[in-house]
């Protein structure tokens, strides 16, 4: 209220000054008075005063923004002199809202990383089919189902370890950092929960005692086990051509439960592998 009164007073003063300064016949149109204390003033010359300024309408730019004078700063304090803003900041803050629709597509893929790793001498493999749904291109609920198996006779060891092809499942969610960008490219992190039930054999076991001069050979077969674990992953996915994409992920595993039978814990867990880290490489097709 005070600001309004002050604005009106200043306007009146300015008006008075202008009236006293201008030659007779001049008039000033006050086209708008705003609550934020800015006045838009458009001078108008009259035909009865040929010595006054004459605006030639030839170069009228209808798209031109009106000139704005600011008489107060952002704290409401009067400025020593009006400030003319030639540019207005037209940059708008990015909206955090999603850009894409709630259902933005489905993707089906296959993980074939261990096919490559076996060429480098790895003795176990996990292959899975995976499917996810794009929600706003932001969140990707995912399910992975596959088979894992192992067959290894380590050097200088007294056994052969075999895991029959066994089924595993993982369920989780990915978060896409590039959710406002082109959905053909994703940079994401994710979580998974995995489960597997499997059997393994340990064959050609040789145990000896030098002092007693004894050697025994035997097999341990059909040892049942199950495992429950969690995963944290980070990855990249890039569209190659049409609806075909390639992607890779680095995964860190942590077991929640692994069955122990007579003191024996499995070396290889289908879907999990043998260690805490694993790599996935997936080819996928979008729908």
């Amino acid at each position, binding site marked *: 209220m005070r600001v309004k009164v002050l604005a009106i007073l200043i306007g009146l003063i300015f008006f008075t000054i202008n009236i006293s300064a201008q030659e007779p016949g001049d008039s000033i149109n006050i086209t708008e008075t705003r609550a934020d204390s800015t006045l838009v003033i458009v001078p108008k010359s009259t035909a009865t005063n040929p010595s006054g300024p004459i605006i030639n309408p030839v170069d009228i730019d209808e798209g031109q923004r009106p000139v704005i004078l600011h008489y107060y700063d952002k704290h409401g304090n009067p400025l020593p002199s009006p400030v003319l803003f030639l540019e207005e900041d037209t940059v708008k803050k990015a909206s955090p809202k999603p850009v894409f629709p709630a259902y933005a597509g489905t993707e089906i893929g296959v993980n074939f990383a261990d096919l490559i790793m076996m060429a480098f001498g790895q003795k176990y493999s996990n292959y899975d089919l995976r499917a996810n749904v794009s929600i706003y291109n932001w969140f990707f609920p995912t399910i992975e189902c596959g088979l894992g198996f192992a067959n290894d006779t380590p050097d200088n060891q007294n056994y052969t370890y075999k895991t029959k092809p066994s089924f595993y499942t993982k369920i989780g969610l990915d978060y896409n950092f590039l959710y406002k960008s082109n959905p053909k490219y994703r940079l994401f992190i994710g979580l998974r929960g995995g489960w597997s039930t499997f059997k393994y054999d340990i064959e050609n076991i040789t*145990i*000896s005692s030098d*002092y*007693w001069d004894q050697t025994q050979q035997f097999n341990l077969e059909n040892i049942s086990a199950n495992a429950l674990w969690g995963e944290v992953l980070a990855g990249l996915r890039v569209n190659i051509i049409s609806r075909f994409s390639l992607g*890779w992920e680095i995964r860190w595993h942590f077991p929640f439960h692994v069955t122990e039978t007579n003191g024996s814990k499995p070396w290889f867990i289908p879907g999990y592998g043998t260690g805490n880290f694993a790599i996935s490489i997936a080819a996928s097709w979008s729908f």
Partner: protein
Amino acid sequence: MTSYRIRHIASMILALAVVMPLSFIIVSCDSTCDDNRNTLPLAGFYAMVEGKMQSVSVDSLQIVGLGAPGDSILSDMHSMASTVHLPFRIDQDETAYDFIARKDKNTSIHDKVIFRYSRVPQFVSQECGVSYRFNINQISWEGAFIDSVTCPKGYIDNHPLENIHIYFHVTK
């Protein structure tokens, strides 16, 4: 194919070229077995000294496995020792040892210790392989200088720890 797409595919291939060797290194890291490859029971010697049970060193003590090929001597201590390995038989669930203490040149005292157990093969790890776990069912002893024999944990596995305690009589 646009140059933009070519750049993306190239960056993907480059990322794979970095990731694949890294994963190979992670997967193929060699590790060794920190424990024994075979289960090897380790016995420590103890005696009551000044009212306290203490670890002691013994000399002039000979240990022979009963039924060992050629009656081979397991330990022929001419020097002081406070521990000794006592390998168990793997073809049966019983192992007996003869402890021979030499009093003098012509005289020796024999004590006998019998371990009865059940053998359970277990897969320890990829590095350590398969070894027996001996679940001790009974320990019996007879003689003059061995006071008692115990297995505190009740079982013996491939960890290189002292898992048998042999207590000797101490005469003042």
